[in-house]
């Protein structure tokens, strides 16, 4: 009788799906042995058994779904890391050439500074060489212009060699 009283007190939580596994097991065993309690439990469970218990998936399906969820959690860090690594590799392989006036990214810092500082005067020399070249075309054989061209070319060679000096 005490068992039947206990079942009555547990029935509401059992039907709501809030009973523990041990309580549910005890209740179902008792209902299987006691006609009185079976008469109470059977119709109630037909109507009120929680949907979650009625539609619970087989254990194998549940395990497979949980396994995929876990795998998805693991992929959360892997995907951004893979993208970052890919971007870094792409940047290293297709790094753009520096524009004029920018310090080129060389291994030797002194060489980079030297090349940057010489860029302006190399431009000055090229402009002057072009101007003298046009003047010589207008006055072929002009000795003064020819000598001036030689001096400018010598200055250009000097500047380039001085930049190279800092490569080593």
């Amino acid at each position: 009788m005490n068992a039947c009283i206990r079942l009555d007190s547990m029935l509401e939580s059992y039907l709501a799906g809030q009973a523990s596994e041990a309580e549910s097991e005890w209740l179902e065993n008792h209902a299987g042995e006691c006609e009185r309690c079976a008469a109470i439990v059977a119709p109630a469970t037909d109507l009120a058994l929680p949907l979650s218990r009625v539609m619970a998936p087989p254990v194998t399906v549940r395990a497979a779904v949980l396994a995929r969820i876990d795998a998805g959690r693991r992929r959360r860090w892997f995907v951004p890391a893979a993208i970052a690594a890919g971007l870094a590799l792409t940047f290293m392989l297709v790094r753009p050439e520096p524009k004029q006036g920018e310090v080129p990214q060389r291994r030797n810092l002194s060489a980079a500074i030297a090349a940057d500082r010489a860029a302006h005067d190399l431009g000055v020399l090229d402009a002057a060489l072009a101007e003298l070249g046009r003047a010589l075309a207008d006055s072929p054989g002009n000795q003064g212009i020819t000598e001036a061209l030689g001096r400018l070319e010598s200055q250009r060679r000097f500047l380039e060699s001085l930049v190279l000096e800092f490569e080593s």
Partner: protein
Amino acid sequence: MTWRLLTLVFLPFVALPAQQQVRGMPAAPDVAVRFWIPAGRIEVQGWDRDSVDVRSRAAPGTRLDGGGDRRGVKFALQSQVDTILPSAQLQVRVPRRAKLWIKSTTATVEVTGVHGELEVLQVSGGTTILNGRGVATVESIDGAISVAGMDGTLRIRGGSALANVRGISGTVDISMISGGVSLVAGPDPGDDVSGRIETVTGPVEFRGATGGGRLDISTHEGAVTLSLLPGFLPLLEVEAPAPAFEPSVRAGNRQAGRISVRTFKGRVNAGLATGI
């Protein structure tokens, strides 16, 4: 972002005190001395002793390596990282007739009283030569060059900075690109100056007298200004576009020397100097 990270990484090195080092070694009178100092400052003084003395204060993370024997010594600054230039403050004394070679990127170089051979290679640091004698060569991409007192041969090749030479006696060979040249030479006996000065767009100024020497000046479009001492007027030879030459002096005599100017399109002005 990268620079912020680098600053955070290297800030502790900057904040730490520099390391001081003193090295002394016996040397021959004409010992070859070589320095590679990318950044900082190096002061070299010629002295009448048979030794090389090096006092350095290197920045944290930088060390001065070097050594040698009586015939030659070599020092170089080394850094533990290649993202900053190794930097140090160096005070060096060498035998007066030493053969001195200094290579620098941005360091300031000052050499006083060296009478042997001097060669300086620079990117953008300033170079000063005081009371030099013998042969001095300075090659600089855009660092300023200043010479005060030189007896012998002076060679300067540079880019965009100013070459400022005072008190020269002997031979000059100065070549700049966009940088200017200012040369002042005195009329005293023995102060004769000869040689050549050339620039592309940089201005050239000569003040004083050649003392009987011959000076050739050429530019592409750099202006040339001659301020000549009365009583020491040299012969003038000018090849320039006619409107560009505005001489207020023409006469001169061969004993006072000769100055030749050639320019493609620069202006030339010759006048009297009130003093030097």
